[in-house]
């Protein structure tokens, strides 16, 4: 148990160290990097993904996966755009979109928690199905023309230099951290991901917890889809396509185990900061698109490889036992 605590701490320590290096290099390479406006820019360009990362952390720690988040984002954005363009008040359209997203999440949760299907298959079907629904609704068009107040919510600062999405993100960071590490629900999430049988026998209402997590995932994805529509001002069938991979990448780089049961919110937040700053630095150096993705891919592989290699080396030299994957984050629960 102590090994694990150390390892987690060192994971976050490693992320922090890399983050410091990235920030230092960026500051040296790009004079404008440290300006307030640039710091806001770098968040604003990816804040919708970052918001979903927070809820995805719960999903993965509980031992599940939600591949459908980007499709739900797209569907919610499409619903807002299509309804608004047909004369429905945008306020109502937003509520409908959030409802649709929550229903998508609830449907995922139903198949996983009640019927007992693997979340990988269920949400893969969701990825295809919800995206398909979005494309049926909007066809091959680009729909925009939102009212000004909606676009300015996505584009203009409303508190100091901060736009709405950043404020929502900041509030959610605090909320998610508290729920995961300080609440009974957070504890259930860890237990569920560690060993679902144990959770069941200990009286955790596993179905209800999983339904809640998946519904929350759908709701938050829809919320960030609406924010994306507001920021971009127009929506297409391909809006947010492929975001799920970036989102899951940020969660895993944050030290959350893909097998569930282990990971912390501070680690995930460091991972978000690291990836956003890295992207921004590469962007300022005109390194973009596929190359950026490549760099982040290498980072992810290394971050998975290095700790495991260290563990293997330790066990070979017999100084310490290898850290195994079967004793997940009970340390979080005390």
């Amino acid at each position: 148990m102590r090994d694990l605590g150390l390892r987690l701490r060192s994971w976050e320590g490693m992320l922090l160290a890399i983050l410091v290096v990235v920030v230092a290099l960026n500051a040296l390479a790009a004079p404008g990097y440290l300006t307030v406006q640039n710091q806001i820019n770098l968040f604003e360009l990816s804040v919708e993904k970052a918001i979903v990362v927070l809820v995805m952390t719960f999903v993965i720690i509980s031992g599940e996966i939600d591949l459908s988040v980007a499709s739900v984002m797209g569907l919610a954005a499409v619903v807002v755009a299509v309804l608004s363009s047909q004369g429905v008040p945008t306020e109502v359209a937003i509520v409908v979109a959030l409802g649709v997203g929550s229903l998508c999440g609830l449907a995922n949760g139903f198949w996983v928690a009640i019927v007992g299907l693997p979340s990988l298959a269920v949400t893969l079907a969701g990825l295809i199905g919800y995206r398909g629904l979005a494309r049926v609704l909007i066809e091959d068009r680009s729909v925009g023309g939102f009212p000004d107040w909606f676009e300015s919510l996505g584009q203009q600062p409303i508190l100091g230099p901060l736009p709405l999405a950043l404020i929502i993100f900041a509030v959610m960071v605090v909320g998610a951290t508290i729920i995961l590490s300080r609440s009974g629900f957070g504890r259930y999430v860890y237990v569920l991901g560690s060993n679902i049988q144990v959770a069941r026998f200990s009286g955790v209402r596993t179905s209800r917890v999983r339904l809640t997590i998946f519904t929350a995932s759908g709701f938050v994805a829809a919320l960030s889809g609406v924010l994306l529509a507001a920021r971009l001002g127009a929506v297409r069938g391909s809006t947010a396509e492929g975001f799920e991979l970036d989102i899951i990448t940020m969660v895993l780089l944050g030290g959350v185990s893909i097998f569930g049961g282990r990971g912390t919110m501070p680690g995930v937040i460091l991972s978000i900061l690291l990836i956003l700053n890295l992207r921004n630095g590469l962007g300022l150096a005109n390194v973009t698109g596929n190359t950026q993705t490549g760099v982040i891919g290498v980072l992810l592989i290394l971050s998975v490889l290095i700790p495991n290699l260290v563990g293997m080396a330790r066990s070979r030299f017999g100084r310490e036992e290898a850290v195994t994957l079967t004793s997940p984050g009970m340390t979080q629960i005390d």
Partner: protein
Amino acid sequence: MNVRLAIALLGTIAILTGCSSPGAASPAASVAASTPAASASEPAPSASAAAGGAVKATPGQSVKMMLLPKFLGILPFDQANKGAEEAATELANPEKLSFVGPTAENSVQGQIEFMTNAPTQGLKVVMLSNNAGDQIAPAAEAAQTAGTKVVTWDSPIPSAKGESLFVAQVDFDSIGVVMADMALDLTGSDGGEFAVLSASPDAANQNAWIAALEKALKDPKYAAVKLVDTVYGDDVSEKSYNQALALVDKHPKLEAIMAPTTVGIAAAAKAMQDEKLCDKVKVSGLGLPSEMVSYTLNGCAPEFALWSFVDLGYLTYYTSYLLATGAIQGTEGEQFTGGRMGDYTIEKDPTRDAGLRVLMGPFTVYNKDNVEAAAK
């Protein structure tokens, strides 16, 4: 267990059907681009001959500039970069020109990211071929506020918000007319149905041209031709190819496909050639001679039009340099010399509700008589 199996199977089928697509291929390999005959540099159009005379650029000033096409990886934008580099050398700008862009799939997000980062990079001007509709306007306005000029070329910002100037390749309304003419030509004297294969629904120039085409078609002269559909291939070869085939399936009486995009026209021509449909459905629109020569000679795409992207890049660089150095302010009526291409006047853009433009022109219509020479 059976339920699980059934659902797993359904999922697999969904994936398979969702992903399978007729083996599409990229358009014909492109021959290295030689400038389509350094075309007759057209002197400033209209220009109510203000006595002031045209402003000339002072070479050697240091201006950090970025050429941002819709996306990287297709010939027209490489040609524009070639023209811009030519102007950069001529103007002896010590700052190297950045030629960057997103991928075609990530064009909207990618362009917004470049525009957002531009002021932080210390850029004095971004030369943008807009593929993000008005979605890029907030980022462009923020860039202007932070001291970065935004000059559009090829494809403007529809609302003109955040845009200093638009360097227009040709008059957008005239593209509508030339496309209507070509559609009439291809469907024969008895007319017939045709469809448009566009790039992305967010591409401002494409939308403007389709609108101009629809306007032109109202003329009784074109009563026999009927526009039955507009589809989008996103300037991705495979998607454009599939969309062209889908058009033929959907509209059995289709006689022509007009693609006002170099990616779309080449993909559509290849699709018709591969499916041996060239006798029935002709392809036309805007294309590069080097990519279209074989389709023009074999009759799949008997005629198409285009302008010089090298000249467009050259003129855009010149205009942007003058604007960023303060030699011109970007106001209506200003005259300047665009290097080897002659004098130009900044005018109101008559094809948009707002915005200023510099009109380059002209375009060339290619057919079997002149395409080979232009493709060399």
